């Protein structure tokens, strides 16, 4: 009898994490908290990729390589995102996303 690990248990866990990220994205007002929720979603995507890699067993570990790229780009995104939030806070004394309605029609 082989190892009885179901693929779906990882995918469903990733889906739950992703959905919690979506909820945080919608409900948080503070821009830093919105970025935290985005990080949660990216972690869920990485779980999906690594689980699929364990399932397909590609010879070049393609899923893991893609996850490496996602981690790198996410790190860059956090750096830029926090710099922008810092600038917004400096200019408007607030980092709440619902108060940034300058360009709203």
């Amino acid at each position: 009898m082989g190892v009885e690990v179901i693929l779906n248990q990882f995918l469903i866990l990733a889906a739950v994490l992703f959905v919690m990220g979506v909820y945080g994205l919608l409900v948080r007002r503070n821009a830093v908290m919105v970025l935290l929720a985005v990080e949660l979603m990216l972690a869920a995507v990485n779980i999906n990729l690594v689980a699929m890699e364990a399932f397909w067993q590609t010879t070049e570990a393609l899923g893991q390589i893609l996850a490496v790229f996602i981690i790198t780009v996410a790190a860059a995104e956090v750096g830029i995102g926090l710099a922008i939030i810092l600038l917004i806070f400096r200019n408007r004394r607030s980092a709440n996303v619902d108060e940034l309605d300058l360009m709203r029609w």
Partner: protein
Amino acid sequence: MGFEDWIAEPLNWVFAVIALATVVSGFRVVTSPNVVHAALFLVAALAGTAALFLLLAAEFLAWVLVLVYIGAVIVLFLFGIMITRAPTGRDESNLDHKRRLPAALVSLALLALLLWGLISQWGDTTIDRITAGTPTTVLGEGLLGRFVFPFEVVGFVLLAALVGGITIARRDLSPAEEKEWESK
């Protein structure tokens, strides 16, 4: 395959514990009224993710996650929280929107859609063999062989993010300060 078979596998015990910890801390990330706690719960959620990577034989990626996220990104977040003076106390009114119910409904609808898709597609498909570990050699050869161009592009993205971050966040000098700077 029944639940008894599933729970008989020791790996699934480990998975259940990690999954519970990850989901609980992920939930606290988006609901905690204290922003510093939310960032620290993200550490726990990411540590759970790294443990899942270890379970799935992706050692290198697990440690990359620990070093890059828990080591660097969370520190950035804590700096961001401190600098923007986010409400660190229990000031819930300023942190969340009032309209939580629609957001929760949208999230639950998305979850139902994802679950329906996943279950109808994969069902009880098992991961046949979880290997002892992906050799880092494979990742290195992939990154510097077939994927060398994306690798270089990502390196350039990091450089651009570094320069852009400094340029965006730098404080412009006031005219008086600028005059003082020129006179030196």
